[in-house]
Structures are given as structure tokens and as C-alpha cells.
């Protein structure tokens, strides 16, 4: 093994790999492009019935009573459940993988109890023999609502006189603790240095407020599942999610079932972006399956997806940035007010931790407020919380550059975080590649290309931690020497390809002999969900270790066949080689030959590894965006876009580039047109792709990418997470471009045409 480790290390330094860094066709590609891949809604079981959900038409109301008798009396209706059918859970916060979890809130979000807290909040669910009967049954459920005053906006929700969503909600993190309930769920503060002193030293200060709208992850596949419960109470769930083990755990909590009685099979996933890291339908489907005795199939409509799942926080962000005349940052302060939706748990604290982390700022402080209002409970969305804080910071930096008459790229480079820079949340950065992304931006032809009239160029950077965590992998050698690589993480970004590449690299074998498999909860040991940009890093590390374990066994088997000591066997190019001085002439034993004889040397060859991966490498990106503004309509056209990122090591560069492109496009949508629009009664007005305006292909230029590779020393191949960083810079990159094109500082997202035109005309009127 020592030889192999050294070889890997040498490989990192010399970049000599057989598979790592190549672009083979993805293992799941053929099924996806031919429509064979089975997504959440695609399973069909004998006797399966349809489940549907009755949802609140009110933003905020007390449920006086629910009468389901007329629905139950309808022929074809097999089960009806309401909140009363689910256990009351303790109001306590459990440690989660990325953020703390309160399962009482998860449960009350899955199905309302005493109150409905947003338009679309689930109130009851029905299982029936057809979708038509289920729909008719929903119309026969009588809910007696006492409509209550509601609050949508985050600043309104923080007001003293705001309608309170949760009567028992006392602000966490404030000393002394308030005595009165409010919508302010919590306050978190991060600080380093002395900001008062810092601002006293500043020669120029930029201070502004910024807002961003609530936006949805916009995955194309709606939430979907099938649940089946056997007569002895064992539940099986097939569903599309970012983590089969997460679904198992959350369902066991919400349903008070033994985790050992639930098996979850991951379906193919049609996009998640963080939004499928929780449960909505699954516990309802299990409850309906328990009562009906039939498998229950549930699929959300697009309207339900918008009204009742997702989004991430709309925010109010206040930034104060102090610098010397030479551009060096001396102090930074931010106050973040994030919508949590109907239940506590916004990613405000993650905004506070990430907002300043691209820079060396000696004195910095972030105050983060988590605020509930009558909107759907927010869910994780790609680098949760970071894009909004970063939008404020990167806009302020752009304005600072304008006021100092400095190049905004040079200003960033001057203050760039590097190895040893302390973060506001404590640790110092180890090896990072932020400055390298700026250098790559500077060298890119995009940065110096000429601009036409009404055009502007924006630049912005972004940071995300990336995480490691618990992962399992098993490598099974088949009788013919081909290999199965089983992991427990749904493939949302091409991770099957990366797992296969890493296993093939370690084993030195042909890639097409490696078949990646995503196991269900009964087939592979626990793995934390696919999120936090962790899978290629952490699960990849487990795969590498499992493959190394198999290599060790293969050497032993070869030694046994050769009747020599294992220390005289090395593994190279997919075969065992004898290094014993007097027997070096022996022909190598291939993987296939060893596998074929496994029965004679000790039985099947298989390696399973479960780890808690540490050492995730932080990720940094820098994006450049050119826009043209139509000064008469406020229309914005994105002309050119380049995303540059330190990716550590790209195992499969095409899918890494795809991550950069996808993140950039979601960020462009967030910046330009996406937003949740509510009417005066708190009902969502644009619960569909027509009026929730995600960009379409023709809105966008090809997103150019540059992969900067500063390897993460904690990973055998140098991997850093890459999936989340690319959504952090675009909000400010676009807004800075628009601000420069229009000659106005735009601080509120989205930069929709009516808003931009009003600003342009307002500035004209003001002279």
C-alpha cells in the first residue's frame, strides 16, 4: 500500500492519471437521454393508488375543525389523514448535518396542526383509486378556518405589532431573553477584531442596504414518491431525494416509526439544488399506505412545488465596508435579516459566516437574524444563505472601487484571503485558491474585451465552505474482474461518473469495467445526504479507500497464488506484479485472473469502507458578467459570462464545468427575474414556470468556464467541493454589470425590467 499512496501523491504533483481529469460518457447517460431513467414518479406497483394533498388557501389561519366524513364516504376513497393522525413531537433542536433540525417543525410543515401558516400548507391527504376520485374527495373535506392577520415581508415580520406565527417563539441568542413571543426566531453574531476601531481607521466607508427576493430551486422534477407498508408494519419508500438515509430518518421521526422498519430506495433525481434535503410527501404517503393497505403514489403539481416546497430566503442585508484610500479593507460589518418561511431555520448564519470570507478584513462583524413569516418553510438552496450576503458585500466592493477609481479586480486581489487568513467564524484558511481565480480572471480575454454603449461589466467573487461528513462505499469484485462501486448518495451532479473514475484510477483498470450503483438504505451503510458539495470529496474518499482495500486484498490473493510473501507483490496497471528478486520474471496476474480464482484463495473479494471525512477544501469563485441595458424598457440582456473557480482537482471536468454553468445560470435568474410574488391576502401569485421567470436557454450566452486547480491536500486526488460556490458570485456580478451599464447603483433584486426602468427614469427625473 505504501507504494500506491506514494504513487497517488506523486500523481497529484505530476498530474499523471489514467482516468482522473478525463471526460468519459457518464454511466447514467444513456438511460437519461433515452427516457429510461426511473425518476420519483415513475414507479408503478400492483394495486397502487393515488395520494393527493389538500392545501391551505390562506396565508395564516387557525383550523377550528376538519370534517373528512364526506370524503371518506366517497366510493374509491381508501384513506384520509389530517394532522391529528400524526404524533406530536417535542419542540427540540437536534444536530443536523449542515444545520440544526427541529423535527416538530418538519412534522408541522408536512401537515398542519392547530394553524396553517402559509398559502399551500398541507392540511389533509387522501388516498383514492383514481386521481379524479382523490380530487373530488379533497373538495369534500370541510375545513373551518379562522383567518388571521398575516405577514409576508421580513422587515414587517420583525415589527413589534406584527401578527405572531408561533405563540411560543422566544428569540434565541438574545440576552436577556425576551419575555414576549415574536417572529424573530434567533440572532447569531460572528465577530473578529474591533469594528469600532476599524471604522475609526477607515478613510472611506461604503454603507448601504440591499434586498433579495425569495427564490425557488426550480428543479424540473417535482417531489414524488411511492410508499408501501406490509401487513407486519414494514414500510418501503421509493422517492427522489438528495438522501435516502435522510428520508428514512425524517420519516421515522415524523411517523414515530422504528428506523429499522423503513427502507428507502432512491429514485433517479431530476434536480434538487438543496431543495430535496427534507421530506414533504413521504410521511403522508406512508400514513396513507398504512391506512389503505395499498402502495400510495404521490406527485406534486408544479403549483404545489412552488407553494409548499423550497424556496430560499428573501433577505434584507445591510453592509458597511471601511477601507484605506489605497483600497485596503480595514473594517466590515453586516446585518442580515433572512426570511425563514413559516418555521425557524433560515440560513442567515451561513450568510454571516461566508459574506466576508473572500477577504482579509482585520475587523469584522456579522449579525444574523432568523425571521419567520407566512411563506413556505425555506429549504436549502445551493450554498444556503451565502449568495444574499455576498451580493451585498460584492456590491459594496464594486462601489468602493468606483469611488476610489480602482479596478474592481485589483481591489479584490489586494484584499484577497489566502493561506493563513482568519475567517470570521474562527479557523484560518489552509491551502486555498481565491487569488488564483482573480489572476485567471485578469488573464482571461473577457476581462479586457471592449464594451459598447449601454453595456456594463460586473465582477464578483464568492466563497463556500464545502463539507465532508459521513459516507460509505463498497467495492465488489465480480467473477470476471469487473467491479461494482456501491455508494449511498443520490447522483445529482454526475457523481456516478466521478466515483467510477476514482475507483478505476486506484484499481488501475478499464473504466468501462466499473459500474457505479447507488444503494438503498438496506444495501449500503449510512451516508449523509448529497449536499454541501460533499459527495465527490467525502464519498469519493470512501470509494478511494474501499478500492485501496480491494487492492490490498488483490495483492494478498496474488501472493497466495504465487506462494510468496505479500510484500513482494505490487499493484500496477490493474495487475499484480511480483517484485521478488529471483521471481521477477513471473507474468503479472490481472484483476480478472485473480477474480476468476477467488474461490481458491479465500472467496469473494470485496471492500467496504465507512468514514467521517474531514478536511473539505473551501471553494472560491470569481465571475465576470457583461450585460446590455435597454434604457427605454429596463430590459437586460446578458451578453457574455465567464465563471472561474478553484475546483481543487476536477475528476470529470465536464461535470465540474456543468456545475459552474448551472450555478451561474441559477444566480443570473435570481439576479434578474425570479421572485415569489404575493397578493394582499398572502397568496402566491406566480406558482408556475410561466410567471416565476427562470431564464430559458435563449436568454443566456454560453457560460464560459475556467477551472483553476489548487489541490486540496486532504483528498487523495485533491478534490474540493464545486457545486455550491458557483451560485454565490452571480447575483453581484450581474448587479454590478447592470449598475455600471445604467450608471446607477442597483441594490434590490430581482433587477426586473419594471424596477430597473423606474430607477433609470427616476435618476433622469432627478437630473
Amino acid at each position: 500500500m505504501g507504494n500506491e499512496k506514494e504513487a497517488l501523491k506523486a500523481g497529484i504533483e505530476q498530474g499523471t492519471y489514467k482516468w482522473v481529469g478525463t471526460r468519459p460518457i457518464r454511466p447514467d447517460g444513456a438511460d437519461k437521454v433515452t427516457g429510461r431513467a426511473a425518476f420519483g414518479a415513475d414507479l408503478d406497483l400492483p394495486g397502487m393508488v393515488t395520494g393527493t394533498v389538500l392545501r391551505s388557501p390562506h396565508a395564516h389561519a387557525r383550523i377550528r375543525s376538519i370534517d373528512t366524513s364526506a370524503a371518506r364516504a366517497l366510493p374509491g376513497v381508501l384513506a384520509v389523514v389530517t394532522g391529528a393522525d400524526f404524533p406530536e413531537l417535542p419542540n427540540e433542536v437536534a444536530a443536523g448535518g449542515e444545520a440544526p433540525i427541529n423535527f416538530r417543525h418538519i412534522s408541522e410543515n408536512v401537515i398542519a396542526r392547530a394553524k396553517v401558516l402559509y398559502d399551500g400548507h398541507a392540511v389533509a391527504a387522501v388516498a383514492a383509486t383514481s386521481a379524479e376520485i382523490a380530487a373530488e374527495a379533497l373538495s369534500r373535506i370541510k375545513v373551518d378556518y379562522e383567518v388571521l392577520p398575516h405577514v409576508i415581508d421580513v422587515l414587517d415580520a420583525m415589527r413589534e405589532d406584527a401578527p405572531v406565527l408561533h405563540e411560543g417563539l422566544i428569540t434565541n441568542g438574545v440576552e436577556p431573553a425576551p419575555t414576549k413571543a415574536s417572529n424573530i426566531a434567533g440572532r447569531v453574531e460572528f465577530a473578529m477584531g474591533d469594528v469600532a476601531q476599524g471604522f475609526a481607521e477607515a478613510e472611506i466607508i461604503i454603507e448601504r442596504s440591499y434586498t433579495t427576493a425569495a427564490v425557488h430551486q426550480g428543479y424540473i422534477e417535482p417531489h414524488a414518491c411511492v410508499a408501501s407498508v406490509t401487513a407486519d408494519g414494514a414500510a418501503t419508500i421509493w422517492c427522489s431525494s438528495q438522501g435516502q438515509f435522510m428520508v428514512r430518518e425524517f420519516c421515522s421521526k415524523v411517523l414515530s416509526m422504528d428506523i429499522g422498519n423503513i427502507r428507502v430506495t432512491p429514485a433517479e433525481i431530476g434536480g434538487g439544488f438543496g431543495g430535496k434535503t427534507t421530506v414533504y410527501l413521504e410521511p403522508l404517503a406512508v400514513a396513507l399506505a398504512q391506512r389503505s393497505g395499498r402502495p400510495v403514489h404521490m406527485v406534486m403539481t408544479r403549483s404545489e412545488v412552488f407553494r409548499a416546497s423550497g424556496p430560499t430566503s428573501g433577505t434584507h442585508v445591510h453592509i458597511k465596508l471601511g477601507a484605506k484610500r489605497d483600497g485596503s479593507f480595514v473594517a466590515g460589518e453586516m446585518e442580515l435579516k433572512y426570511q425563514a418561511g413559516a418555521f425557524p431555520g433560515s440560513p442567515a448564519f451561513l450568510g454571516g459566516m461566508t459574506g466576508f470570507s473572500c477577504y482579509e478584513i482585520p475587523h469584522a462583524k456579522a449579525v444574523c437574524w432568523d425571521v419567520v413569516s407566512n411563506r413556505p418553510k425555506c429549504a436549502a438552496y445551493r450554498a444556503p444563505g451565502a449568495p444574499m450576503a455576498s451580493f451585498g458585500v460584492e456590491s459594496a466592493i464594486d462601489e468602493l472601487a468606483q469611488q476610489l477609481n480602482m479596478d474592481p479586480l485589483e481591489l479584490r486581489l489586494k484584499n484577497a484571503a489566502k493561506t493563513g487568513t482568519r475567517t470570521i467564524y474562527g479557523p484560518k484558511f489552509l491551502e486555498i485558491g481565491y487569488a488564483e481565480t482573480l489572476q485567471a480572471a485578469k488573464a482571461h480575454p473577457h476581462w479586457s474585451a471592449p464594451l459598447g454603449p449601454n453595456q456594463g461589466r460586473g465582477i464578483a467573487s464568492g466563497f463556500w465552505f464545502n463539507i465532508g461528513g459521513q459516507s460509505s462505499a463498497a467495492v465488489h469484485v465480480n467473477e470476471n474482474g469487473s467491479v461494482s462501486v456501491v455508494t449511498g448518495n443520490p447522483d445529482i451532479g454526475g457523481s456516478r461518473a466521478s466515483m467510477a473514475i476514482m475507483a478505476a484510477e486506484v484499481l488501475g483498470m478499464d473504466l468501462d469495467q466499473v459500474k457505479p450503483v447507488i444503494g438503498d438504505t438496506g444495501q449500503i451503510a449510512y451516508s449523509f445526504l448529497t449536499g454541501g458539495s460533499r459527495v465527490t470529496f467525502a464519498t469519493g474518499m470512501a470509494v478511494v479507500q474501499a478500492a485501496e482495500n480491494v487492492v490490498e486484498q488483490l495483492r494478498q490473493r496474488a501472493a497466495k497464488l504465487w506462494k510468496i510473501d505479500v510484500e513482494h507483490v505490487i499493484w500496477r496497471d490493474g495487475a499484480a506484479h511480483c517484485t521478488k528478486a529471483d521471481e521477477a520474471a513471473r507474468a503479472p496476474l490481472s484483476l480478472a485472473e485473480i477474480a476468476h480464482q477467488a474461490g481458491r484463495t479465500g472467496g469473494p473479494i470485496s471492500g467496504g469502507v465507512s468514514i467521517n471525512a474531514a478536511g473539505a477544501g473551501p471553494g472560491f469563485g470569481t465571475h465576470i458578467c457583461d450585460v446590455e441595458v435597454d434604457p427605454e424598457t429596463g430590459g437586460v440582456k446578458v451578453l457574455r459570462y465567464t465563471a472561474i473557480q478553484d475546483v481543487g482537482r476536477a475528476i470529470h471536468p465536464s461535470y465540474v464545468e456543468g456545475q459552474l454553468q448551472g450555478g451561474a445560470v441559477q444566480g443570473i435568474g435570481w439576479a434578474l427575474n425570479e421572485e415569489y410574488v404575493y397578493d394582499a391576502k398572502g397568496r402566491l401569485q406566480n406558482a408556475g414556470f410561466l410567471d416565476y421567470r427562470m431564464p430559458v436557454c435563449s436568454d443566456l450566452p454560453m457560460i464560459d468556464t475556467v477551472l483553476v486547480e489548487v489541490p486540496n491536500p486532504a483528498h487523495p486526488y485533491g478534490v474540493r467541493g464545486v457545486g455550491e460556490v458557483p451560485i454565490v458570485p452571480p447575483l453581484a456580478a450581474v448587479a454590478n454589470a447592470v449598475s455600471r451599464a445604467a450608471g446607477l447603483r442597483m441594490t434590490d433584486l430581482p433587477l426586473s425590467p419594471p424596477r430597473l426602468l423606474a430607477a433609470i427614469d427616476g435618476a433622469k427625473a432627478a437630473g
Partner: protein
Amino acid sequence: MNAVEYAKPQSIDDAIRALNNAPAGARVLAGGTDLLVQLRAGHVRPPVIVDLKGIAELRRIEVTATGFRIGAAVAGAELGEHAQFAAEWPGVTEAFHLIGSTQIQGRATMGGNLCNASPAADSVPALIAAGARCVIVGASGTREVAVEEVVSGPGKTTLAKGEFISEFLIARRQAHSGDAYLRFIPRTEMDIAVASAGVCLTLDDKGLCTAARVSLGAVAPTALLVADCAKALIGTSLDDAALAKLAAAASAACAPINDKRGTIEFRTKVAGVLARRAATIAAQRARGN
């Protein structure tokens, strides 16, 4: 329990009969790109749907010496491939082509776009500007009305029970005439007009505007035919002053609403901008033929 009766008559007379025998709430289906969406969303529950796509007269495009007769159930893609119509009425062609996606274009019809009665329908301002008329058939006979007289409000038409549009009549292009249609959407496709303008102009030999029709969409309960816009152009050489007057007249005619797609201020201003830009394109086309 939500059974819908479906009829696909093969002649106009059969269709009239089917509609007259149907209970209240019966709907006509041409392309179905609006109706089926409304049906699925539960916004409408018609007891009977009468599909017009089986009627040959409604599916054909005829060119005579004086004009085009376009069946009300001709799909966007079919009209888009009619080279002569596209050459003579590029504005109408472009407007129709803007509706939906390639898939939608394979189904969507002019008759459906008009009778769905959305204030934002793309083909309607272009048809009004072009002076298009439609033939309406029903139990009490056949009548011919200008396109701008068909829609009476959002989702409402002046068609009587059992009536439907069989075809559109559009004149042959006159010398030195041109038309254009522009809409504003925040994206580049797959969206609904926030404001729109259709313009049709005729110039004399000296380049002075002798006739003009200007129609605005998505800025009032129905598409508007704005006489003051025409007045601003007629008799002028379509110089900047005339175009500015046109824009002002267009904005003055707007009576829009605030909604998720745009504000009153935005629609009012942008309708003027679009009218001016569409007039500029129409003028270029008129000068070119």
C-alpha cells in the same frame, strides 16, 4: 365524475349543430393550447368540447387576388411556412410565431388566440393593425366583423352561443405598405406580453404616411385600436417628432393594471416605446416594397 363529452365534427354545419345542442358551458377547441391548460388547472369544466380541427375549411389558407383567407384552426407552424403570407404580412407572421414554443406552434391557432380573449394575446394587435376581419358562423347565419370587435373583455367575446370563427380575412399587401409587431417580455421566449404594439403603415411615393393602424396589447382589458396613434403618423414622413407623438399617444391610450407581470407605469411607458419601434420597422418594410 368530471366526464367531458368530446365531439369532432367534420363540417361547419355539424359543428354549429353540436354547439347548439350542447348544454351551457360548452367550449370550442381549436389548438387547445389554452383550453386544455385551463381544463387541467380546473378553471373550466365544460360539459362538451367541440374540436374544430376536423373541419377542412378551417384548416386551409387561400390566396385570392384581393386577399388571404386563413382558416381559424390553421396552426401557427402551418401559417409560418406559408411563404407568400409571411412575405406580405411579416408583422402578423412574427406575432403569431411568438406564441409559446415550437411544440405550441404545432397546435396553436389564430382563432383560439383571439377567442381566448386574453388582453395579452400576441397575434391580436398585429391582426387589428393589419385590418383583419373574421368570418363568424352560427345557427343564425354567417357574419363578418373586424377583429377588434370580437373581444369584449378579459376572457369574454361578442360571439353568441353556438357561434365560432371560421376564418380570417386579410387583404393583400398594398404598395409601399408594411407591418410590424413587437412585444416586451422579461425573457426572450416562453412568456406572456407585458405590453405589445402592432403597426401597419402605407406610404405614398414621396414617403409620406397616408394610412396607419396602431394596436396595443396587454395595456387595457382588450387589445386597443388607437386612432390618436394613427393620427400622429398620417401625413408625416415618420420623422422623430411624429414617432415621439406616436409614443405619447400610445402611452396616453393605455389603461393597464398592476400585476405580477408589470406595473401600470411600466406598461404605459413601454407601450409607447414599442409602438415607436414597431412603426420604425413597419416604415422600413413599407419603404422596401
